[in-house]
């Protein structure tokens, strides 16, 4: 267990104590914080470890949300529905990955971005199954008062964050992580030494999607109503990237810190500049990219973790 991983686990443990300090608002922010951290950690697997800039996060978030929503509507218990989202997203992403990950750089970025559009349109048009543009109402999963509901969903999201973090740490230290690192540095050489890069990349893509999809499922059960433009929002694809860039590409601790800092900024901006909040977000992104290209973690003792190499 490295020092950094330990720090990450401690950070996550601290977050668990949130319900002791705040009411409904704190729980809401806390749940979103955990969700953002899951996004950032997941994106980091394919974007940071493997070096493939994926814009597909929103596609799988939405897919997972709808998968769980539909299952819940059919009477399936919440835990089963959420695991259903996890498995479906993993399989779907791994399969799509074998095709899309043949592309590099810009082309891969656009293809992954298009996934969001295609999924959204497909869901929009499958009105019988998903309710189409009208949205999907999701039955209440537990029913003992607002605060208990909020606490339950906070811990559900927090639990998922813990699982995601542990999986990421295991991957990072494993042959898979080492292989992804090789792929990021030199994919040609990786193939030449016997690494099946298509398999490794696809698994990475699958892992980057499954926890995001599960988070989508929890989100759907939490908010009780979803519609295509709400969950298949491109911003859900861009925000994890900004968080990862803020915190430091490649480092799990870094991206989680990035997620929390980003959320903090988002809340502050929302409350004070609601009309121009997306403009302020834009300014933030630009400042970040121009002045802190290696993320916050690069400020730590003047060294930087992973250079954002040519992806």
């Amino acid at each position, binding site marked *: 267990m490295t020092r950094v991983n330990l720090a990450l686990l401690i950070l996550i443990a601290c977050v668990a104590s949130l319900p002791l300090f705040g009411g409904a608002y704190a729980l809401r922010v806390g749940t979103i914080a955990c969700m953002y951290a899951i996004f950032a950690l997941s994106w980091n697997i394919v974007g940071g470890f493997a070096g493939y800039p994926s814009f597909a996060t929103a596609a799988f978030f939405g897919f997972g949300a709808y998968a769980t929503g539909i299952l819940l509507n059919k009477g399936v218990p919440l835990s089963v529905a959420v695991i259903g989202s996890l498995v479906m997203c993993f399989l779907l992403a791994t399969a799509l990955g074998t095709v899309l990950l043949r592309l590099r750089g810009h082309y891969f970025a656009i293809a992954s971005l298009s996934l969001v559009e295609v999924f959204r349109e497909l869901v929009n048009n499958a009105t019988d199954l998903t309710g189409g543009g009208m949205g999907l109402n999701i039955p209440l999963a537990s029913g003992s008062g607002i605060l208990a509901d909020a606490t339950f969903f906070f811990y559900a999201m927090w639990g998922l964050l813990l699982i995601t973090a542990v999986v990421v740490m295991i991957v990072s230290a494993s*042959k898979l992580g*080492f*292989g992804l*690192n*090789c792929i990021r*540095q*030199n994919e*040609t*050489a*990786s*193939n*030449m*030494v*016997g*690494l*099946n*890069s298509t398999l490794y990349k696809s698994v990475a893509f699958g892992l980057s999607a499954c926890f995001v999809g599960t988070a989508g499922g929890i989100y759907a059960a939490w908010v009780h109503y979803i519609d295509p433009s709400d969950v298949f929002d491109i911003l859900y694809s861009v925000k994890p990237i900004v968080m990862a860039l803020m915190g430091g590409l490649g480092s799990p601790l870094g991206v989680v810190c990035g997620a929390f800092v980003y959320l903090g900024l988002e809340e502050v901006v929302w409350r004070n500049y609601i009309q121009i909040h997306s403009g302020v977000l834009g300014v933030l992104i630009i400042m970040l990219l121009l002045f802190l290209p290696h993320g916050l973690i690069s400020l730590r003792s003047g060294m930087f973790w*992973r*250079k954002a*190499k040519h992806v």
Partner: protein
Amino acid sequence: MSEILHLSNVSRHFSGLQALRDVTISVNKGEVLGLIGPNGAGKTTLVNTICGVTPASSGVVTFDGKDITWVKTYQAARLGLSRTFQIVQPFAEFTALDNVAAAALFSHPGESLKSAREEARAHLAFVGLDAQANQSAATLTLAMRKRLELAKALAMKPKLLFLDEVNAGLNSAEVERATKLIHQLAAGGITIVMIEHLMRVVLNVCTRIAVLHNGQLIADGQPRDVIKNPAVVDAYLGQQYAQRNAARG
């Protein structure tokens, strides 16, 4: 001598450019085959075709009894085909040790990172890079990077090793050193195919020479004979070299 690699009428074209034309050649176990020819003759393309980087447009490639015409690069690697690149391809951020460990790790499923790193040390020592084991590959000199490339290729425990211009960019002392290494490898029983422009190295090390010109095999045989072959002299060696050679007898 048993045949380890056989190419049968292998051709490769790139939309209009015929890079390889009906190449038929065998490589026997334990040989050191020199592959020479002018630039653009198709030597690297031939290696790429065998190793699965760019599949053949037609023809059959057989390795160790198996048809490998359509295998992917990583599969060829695991079957025992290993190569160095003309323009070295290290994992720039990794240390020299991890570079070699990666090769040992992925070419043999079932290895662990720990055992791969141990093996890597031995290979680094063989090429004389043990002092640089913990240095990042990006900080090594070109000569060292070429040796690192060799160490990586060896870590794969290949049956057949392709050396693609290992001596390009090296000075005389470095070339001497590289040649000694190749001798040691050949003595160890690895079959080697080397693409090389330095004739003195070729004549020093190779047991057989094949000559490619415009994608076609124009000569294949004992070094002494091939360098006297008029077609080879015309296409590649040049009259001056032939005369100097004849004078030496």
